[in-house]
């Protein structure tokens, strides 16, 4: 594809949130730096049960082509069934029935963090991506995610204005 790159640098970290995250292993640990997380000590862990609901807001509209989720530490805690939703202003676990796309990740895919192609036509104007992780491979009570990568392109019509600064005299 012509312009395939990680669009993690377009994430609005102030609006980054996750439901059911463990308070000491939050989504900011893996996405707060706007790069694919590689630090061993930082990961996202679920709290009350195995489900997780990540809400990732971008600072402009994007098209999303691929998604990669890595959970290499413990295969039984790796996410399995995933539902993707877009552009919901408020979302809870009960709103996840009508997903834009549902995915089953294989153990290989999550171990290596291989990217999975999404149905590109359905992710043409994404402001907010919600990743609902329904269960994990080992039916554990905890789900662990080491890294998330989103590959796509910024929407042509909008420009990233966040980089603009007042000119120095």
């Amino acid at each position, binding site marked *: 594809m012509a312009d395939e790159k990680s669009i993690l640098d377009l994430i609005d970290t102030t609006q980054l949130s996750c*439901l*059911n995250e463990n308070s000491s292993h939050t989504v900011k640990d893996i996405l707060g730096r706007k790069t694919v997380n590689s630090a061993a000590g930082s990961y996202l862990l679920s709290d*009350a049960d195995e489900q997780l609901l990540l809400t990732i807001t971008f600072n402009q509209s994007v098209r999303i082509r691929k998604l990669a989720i890595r959970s290499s530490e413990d295969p039984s805690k790796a996410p399995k069934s995933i539902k993707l939703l877009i552009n919901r*202003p*408020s979302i809870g*676990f009960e709103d996840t029935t009508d997903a834009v796309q549902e995915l089953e990740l294989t153990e290989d895919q999550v171990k290596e963090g291989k990217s999975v192609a999404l149905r590109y036509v359905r992710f043409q104007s994404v402001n907010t991506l919600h990743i609902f992780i329904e269960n994990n491979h080992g039916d554990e009570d905890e789900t662990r995610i080491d890294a998330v990568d989103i590959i796509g392109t910024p929407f042509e019509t909008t420009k990233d204005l966040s980089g603009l600064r007042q000119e120095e005299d």
Partner: protein
Amino acid sequence: MPLEATMIIIDNSEYMRNGDYPPSRLEAQADAVNTVFQTKVDSNPENTVGIMTMAGKGPEVLVTHTRDLGQILKALHTVATEKIGGAINIPTAIAIAQLALKHRENKNLRQRIVVFVGSPPTDAPGSDAASLVKLAKKLKKNNVAVDIVSFGDGIEEEEEVSMEVGAEAHSASPLRKFVDNASSGDNSHLLVVQPGSTLLSDALITSPVLAADRAAGIPEELQGGGGDAGPSQGGAANDFEFGVDPSLDPELAMALRLSMQEANAREAVANPSAAGLSADQPPASSAAAPSTNAGQAAAAGAVGAGAGVAAGAAVANIDGDDEDDALLQQALALSHEEDGEDVEMDGSDEEGDEEGDEDEEDDDEDAAIARAIQMSMEEQQQEDKKGK
């Protein structure tokens, strides 16, 4: 500063007619609701509060998210006159409160439910301990904090046992278990108010339920050392000189500290030499002071000498108990030094220097403007030439 949407669930069952909390349980509860409302709304200009009942014919939302005290009072009045009756249904009420919170306008607000329980546990479906724990986990999963205020018949018998053994006791009452399971990062609390002399609203205002909101408006330096320790901890009182626990009443603590500072300042201004003497009393006064401070004291001249010694003593004294005092005196001494210098030095000289600096700046700016005009003229001329 907590940014929260709060849903208050009040008990309006027949048990609320009891008079063991003066004037009656229901009115004590209304006062407490008022307190919670004011505290929440004052702590952040974006906070909203709603109110609903959980007995009567069924749980009913009276006011959705508002910042208007009138609406809350009106709802409380309606409850008092028309809606007393039936038995409570905690699980359904919490589920409805969660829905109401979900439809808050500002999605940045965190969600909190405050439940007042003045009735004994009922056998409504989902009210057993296991179901409550399940509900608590669901709330935690959805990031909803829950505070429970239990009073009157809401106080459970196992309470004292679980209090003695500590939070980790597994024989805790259903309500305590509920709160423990719903709490993530210590954001949910169970408050038990025994009948007696204390008002329900007074017990609330000094409780951890409202501690975060009440501490929000108070600057960091006035909060005292016990600020980050758990509220209502007895140990914090030892660090605080006025004999009250600052975490119990942060506003009072702030007022005490402020008035202490003011009194110190007044005293020092009125009687600087006495302050110097009192600071001089410890044996290691100026001798123990760092050499730089001793130098300063020497340079301060005849007028500032006494104050300079005080400054040295103050520095040596900082590890002692009255740190604020020492700092204040040091500051005073420094100001005296400056006075002294002003007298010795030629004041006009200094001012002249400053003016000179300003002139230079002005000159620089003028020159820069002139250059800019010149450059733009040149560019224009060049363009004109090109045009030709």
